[in-house]
């Protein structure tokens, strides 16, 4: 196998388990990446300006929801939230009202979805580790 063939194989492997579902206002991207609880990570893409190619890419609040369902509420943990904000920003995303969010347009939508995925995966690992400290049960 040459490097180009491997690259093609990788490209296929990286998104073969993904699904893109049109919604009334954009797209729901179902990935084969998972939350710490094993559920698939979904990315929400909302067209916020018809014809102007402006999109809002978010995790739909699922990052914090998943931990809340595990019995953990990080929203009052100032230091934790500060770290999450910094981690989100390191991937070009923002923490806004406990959603990870990023603006995008036609030319960088794919990249924005990838950055969102990297952000939520990394932050979920961090929160999972905090969960292990078992001090935040709500």
């Amino acid at each position, binding site marked *: 196998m040459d490097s180009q063939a491997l690259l093609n194989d990788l490209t296929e492997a990286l998104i073969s388990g993904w699904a893109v579902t049109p919604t009334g206002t954009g797209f729901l991207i179902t990935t084969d990446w998972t939350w710490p609880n094993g559920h698939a990570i979904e990315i929400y893409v909302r067209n*916020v300006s*018809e*014809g102007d*190619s402006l999109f809002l890419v978010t995790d739909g609040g699922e990052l914090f929801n998943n931990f809340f369902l595990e019995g953990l509420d990080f929203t009052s943990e100032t230091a934790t939230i500060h770290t999450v904000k910094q981690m989100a920003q390191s991937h070009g995303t923002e923490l806004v009202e406990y959603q990870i969010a990023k*603006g*995008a*347009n*036609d030319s*960088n939508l794919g990249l924005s979805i990838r950055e969102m995925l990297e952000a939520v995966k990394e932050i979920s690992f961090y929160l999972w580790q905090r969960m292990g400290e078992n001090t935040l049960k709500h």
Partner: protein
Amino acid sequence: MKKIAPLSLAFLIIVFMASCNMKEGLSLTGKWQSMDTDQIVEFTRDGMMVTTMDGKTNQVGYTLVNNSTIEFFMDEVKLGTFDLRVDRSVLTLVDASGKEHKYEKTW
């Protein structure tokens, strides 16, 4: 002499108003009709852009960075920066990929 004074006053008022307009810079306030689609875009005085197409309405914030750059945002999230041109009653927005979106002022 009595006729010259009111004329001078009028001239000063005109010069003052013109200088005020120059200081205000570019204003997008009002409605714009897309020249390519049925989309109508309204820029409001309070910094919002309301777009309407096929009965659907969206609203995002905007900031004029300068007379040739506009930035759109939603909540605290920056959505994108467009190049901007206004030639008489035609507004042209150029997105990051270089695609042009043209609008004509409706009022």
